[in-house]
């Protein structure tokens, strides 16, 4: 059975329609969404409506959370004050546009979803704001999957799709203790932990790709073979760009959709987890 995972829709209706059409064309009817339905893009209500109509199981992204909870991230979230002002403007615009019904829908979304030992989150099991980048420390990446009790972790948030396998791991430790002894000579004890094979699958971004191309991205997981396919889907970028400008959102949001590169509002230190 094949299963599609989408993420980071960012109020881009044209991109979402194209991705759903691509999924439908392959006869896949199981879809999971990893959040960030809104933010940056010009059609927040239309995108939320479509996800609701299709009854796509969805977990809450950082933008979805911020719209509900208020913008309360620390000032780490943006690489510059200009970028922060643009982000705040998009936040306010989205909050003003969103219907009460759709706001309630975003508020109802869970932080994570499970299917057997597959875990679905927006950022990481720790936080919707944590980036699991493809080249992050391998032990730290494995810790995120293992501490959550998952075999495969599906995430988004980075807007760059990838499949990462962590295998053949081990950690040797030497422990010395002196329980109850005043500076007693400690006997060393050596131990070894064998680490299990784990996978992280990042679904990329439907509505705001940052992988160096303008195409929307998502992944298909073939559960019978465990194979993962990273899909790129062309869509009508100009339609979304015109809507961004017409809505009065910062034109740089349209400019970067036309380029597909990471000029987005991402923190300089992607390993930083916002303290809220």
């Amino acid at each position: 059975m094949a299963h599609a995972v989408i993420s980071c829709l960012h109020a881009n209706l044209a991109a979402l329609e194209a991705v759903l059409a691509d999924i439908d064309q392959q006869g896949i009817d199981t879809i999971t969404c990893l959040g960030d339905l809104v933010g940056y893009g010009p059609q927040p209500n239309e995108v939320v409506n479509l996800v609701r109509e299709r009854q796509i199981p969805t977990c809450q992204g950082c933008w979805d959370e911020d719209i509900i909870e208020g913008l309360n991230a620390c000032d780490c979230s943006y690489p510059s004050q200009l970028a922060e002002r643009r982000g705040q403007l998009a936040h306010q615009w989205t909050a003003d546009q969103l219907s009460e019904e759709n706001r309630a829908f975003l508020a109802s979304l869970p932080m994570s979803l499970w299917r057997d030992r597959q875990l679905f989150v927006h950022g990481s099991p720790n936080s919707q704001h944590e980036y699991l980048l493809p080249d992050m420390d391998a032990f730290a990446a494995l810790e995120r999957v293992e501490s959550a009790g998952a075999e495969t972790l599906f995430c988004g948030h980075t807007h760059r799709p990838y499949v990462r396998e962590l295998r053949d791991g081990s950690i040797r430790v030497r422990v010395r203790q002196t329980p109850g002894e005043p500076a007693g000579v400690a006997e060393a004890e050596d131990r070894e932990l064998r680490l299990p094979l784990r996978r992280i699958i990042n679904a990329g971004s439907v509505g705001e790709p940052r992988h160096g191309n303008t195409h929307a991205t998502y992944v298909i997981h073939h559960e019978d073979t465990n194979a993962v396919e990273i899909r790129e889907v062309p869509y009508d970028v100009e339609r979304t760009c015109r809507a961004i400008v017409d809505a009065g959102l910062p034109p740089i949001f349209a400019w970067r959709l036309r380029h597909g590169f990471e000029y987005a509002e991402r923190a300089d230190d992607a390993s930083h987890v916002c303290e809220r």
Partner: protein
Amino acid sequence: MARWALISGLRGDLEAYEAIQTDLRHTRRVDTLFVLGDVIGPERECNALLERLQQPRRGDLQPHCLYGWWEEQLLAERGYRGGRRADALRLSQGEAAVDALLQAVDPAHMNWLAALQFGFIELDCALLHGSSAAVDDSLGPDSSPLLLLDRLTRMDVNRLFTARSGQQFRLELSGGGIGSQVRDLEGQRQHQQSVPQRQVIGIGAGVHYTIYDPGSDRLDFFIAGTKPKQRARGFA
């Protein structure tokens, strides 16, 4: 190079603090004292110890203090943590413990407690009450090495001194590695990563304290008020 003394978990016990100060003054050749939290607790009145920490006596080593789990609970209950209250304490020990903690500390000390930091970074060492993840993160010799490595990696340090478990231990990451294979739209790449040579050190609590010499990496565990069974024990 300076030798450090690391203490924690006094929980209002001025006598224990005085015993440690006496030890340090007479025998240990220490010039920096770090207090890794839990200077307060619900068992006894804590004001005398708090006053001593803020106004050291002549001959005392000047303490450099962090906040620990008990300070976090009191600060939350007194409204210093936004909407949060001492929920963890309430859940684990009940309303009576919350009341006892409130009674144990004069509100006049709250501003000093609120100004305490979460952790110190000294040289390549992190000094924390719990861990880089949270003040209540209890790291011990039986904690998963994967979790310990994660806590070290988050701070990008080679030594993590922790107090939350109350145990004295030294855990060295001594070897191992992991293979990583990443596939994305640019292709596929493989990477082999080794376990870095890092350590997590539990400093003990109450009269159980630790001396660390960052120059030689030597570590010794002591109990205040007792004579060591032999001199120069410990491990470098």
